[in-house]
């Protein structure tokens, strides 16, 4: 007796057997019929599946040279406990995260020396202009919020980022469909054909950034991406003059998960773009294996402003390099209500006007 080969239905997952009447494979559960070759190919692809393999070398940053940190001081916020780094001449005395006073706690020590820094390119004036622009043209923003902003407290902070380089090998299986429609005298027909599209190959990523500070929300930092690494320079303490710097408190190892997530997603997206000629393409299964992964430690320039309004904290951030300004804003619920009612009335009236014209023109 030969081996009894059992196939899984690509449509519903049930076990399929050969239907001798139609000389085809047929799923007893969903009644879908298959060519033998299709099932064999699908089965092979299923058997070749590999799991993800994401290994990195995370030895980023370097040790500080002797005397290099002499001019650096550590400051601590009395309120939120945030620890930041500045040079000894730093004028600011408020915590960039919560706005409360900060005090010098002593000579800077410990932590790694960043590999790179992207110096601030936009000054405080630009940051203020960015905020004003960010607040303008938003009809549902409470008016008082604009007026009550302590715009002068906007601060330039160097935020620690881990930058990940990697090569990715991928085997991805996509489920694709083609839809064909036609009609005869009595019926409209829609034929949906299902395909398996397998893609394998490699792709490289450079300097995928992951925020290394717990004080900075990851989504806020990802929102002001991208930073242009071409303008990065090897780190020197001189760049910190006049600005604050945050020390990383999330290690490179801990940051990898986020980098992996983004790399995997991008790999799937990129190979998906080679699956063409279909009506829809969805990723069914993917195996992404990383190699030659390495991490670097860099400081990126960010302008941040914290505001408390109606008991809730709002934090704005501006990319200190390209000026991209983000920050969620409060909603004026009453204005939203007024607008909803007003606009609904206007649109309803317009719709009625149009239908009346259509009625006159005998279209409806």
């Amino acid at each position: 007796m030969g081996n009894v080969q059992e196939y899984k239905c690509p449509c519903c997952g049930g076990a399929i057997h050969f239907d001798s009447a139609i000389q085809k494979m047929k799923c007893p559960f969903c009644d879908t019929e298959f060519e033998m070759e299709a099932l064999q190919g699908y089965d092979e692809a299923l058997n070749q599946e590999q799991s993800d393999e994401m290994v990195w070398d995370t030895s980023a940053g370097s040790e500080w040279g002797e005397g290099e940190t002499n001019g650096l001081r550590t400051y601590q916020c009395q309120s939120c406990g945030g620890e930041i780094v500045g040079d000894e001449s730093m004028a600011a005395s408020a915590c960039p995260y919560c706005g409360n006073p900060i005090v010098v706690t002593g000579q800077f020590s410990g932590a790694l020396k960043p590999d790179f820094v992207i110096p601030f390119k936009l000054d405080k004036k630009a940051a203020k202009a960015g905020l004003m622009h960010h607040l303008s043209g938003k009809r549902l923003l409470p008016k008082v919020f604009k007026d009550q902003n302590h715009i002068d407290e906007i601060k330039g902070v160097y935020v620690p980022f881990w930058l990940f380089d990697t090569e990715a090998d991928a085997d991805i299986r996509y489920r694709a469909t083609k839809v064909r429609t036609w009609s005869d005298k009595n019926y409209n027909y829609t034929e949906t054909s299902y395909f398996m599209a397998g893609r394998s190959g490699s792709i490289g990523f450079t300097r995928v950034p992951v925020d290394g500070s717990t004080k900075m929300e990851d989504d806020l930092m990802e929102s002001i991406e991208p930073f242009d690494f071409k303008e990065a320079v090897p780190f020197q303490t001189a760049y910190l003059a006049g600005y604050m710097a945050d020390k990383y408190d999330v290690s490179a190892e801990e940051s990898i998960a986020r980098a992996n997530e983004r790399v995997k997603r991008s790999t799937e997206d990129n190979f998906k773009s080679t699956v063409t000629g279909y009506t829809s393409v969805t990723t069914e299964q993917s195996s992404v294996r990383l190699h030659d992964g390495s991490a670097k430690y860099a400081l990126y320039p960010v302008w941040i402003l914290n505001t408390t309004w109606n008991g809730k904290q709002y934090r704005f951030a501006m990319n200190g390099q390209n000026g991209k300004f983000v920050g969620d804003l409060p909603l004026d619920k009453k204005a939203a209500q007024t607008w909803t009612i007003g606009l609904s009335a206007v649109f309803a009236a317009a719709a009625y006007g149009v239908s009346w014209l259509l009625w006159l023109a005998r279209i409806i």
Partner: protein
Amino acid sequence: MKRTGSKLIGMAAAGLLAVSAFSTVVYAAEGFSSEYERFLDTAYLLSDAEQDEITELLDELSERQKMDVTIATVNNLDGYSSIEACADDLYDYCNFGYGPDRDGLMFVISMEEREWHISTCGYGITAFTDAGIQYVGGQMLDSLADGDYAQAFRTYAACCDDLIDQARAGHPFDEGDAPRKAMSPMVPLICIVIGVVLGVAVVQGMKAQLKSVRKERAAANYVRPGSMNLTGKQDLFLYSHVDRVKKETKSSSGGGGGSSTHTSSSGTKHGGGGGKF
């Protein structure tokens, strides 16, 4: 044909006699070759008083409009294959019509078949388009169905008056002229729903402006340019499904309006149309 023709004249004459006994008005007006009453109630649908009223109404209207506006009621088609042929022959044999073109029209209802028909002739063909005839029939339909024939005939006279006026003014009633049914009360409701949906959508858009912090989905900005290398590619057809949906049957609308004509057994050109009641 001759036989049935004379039979009809017999019918008509009977109607004439029945009517003329009570109607003393005799028209010998210019252009009309009036031998028969304009209202021939051979099915005896109306009371005597109503017969007089309708006859007077039709006479006045016909005189004024210089067109024979006539009505005949029959019990059955009496050997005629269609009510159209019956109506045409009645009109022709009664010698209705004004002037050389025999301008006019005749409304015939046959009680057994419960059919009505309007036969037009001469200028009547121009004035009463197919759509116009259906309009007149539609106006009468309720009264006919209820058995209120006198009211139906009053409506007929009024509609004919209007349609002839309209035709004389240069625009015969045709497709698209039918008075519109009022807009469905659903329309304002639907408009309100559309308004609310759009209003909420726009406000949602305005709310979305307030939110600018969101996670990056992927790392598209950090793909090393030109680093992508596709080494394996396999596209395999698995299976297909066919769904079919029954088409909605749409009744096709007729041609571009106007009046359709045919030639009656006596060789006269008639227009006309009709229906059931």
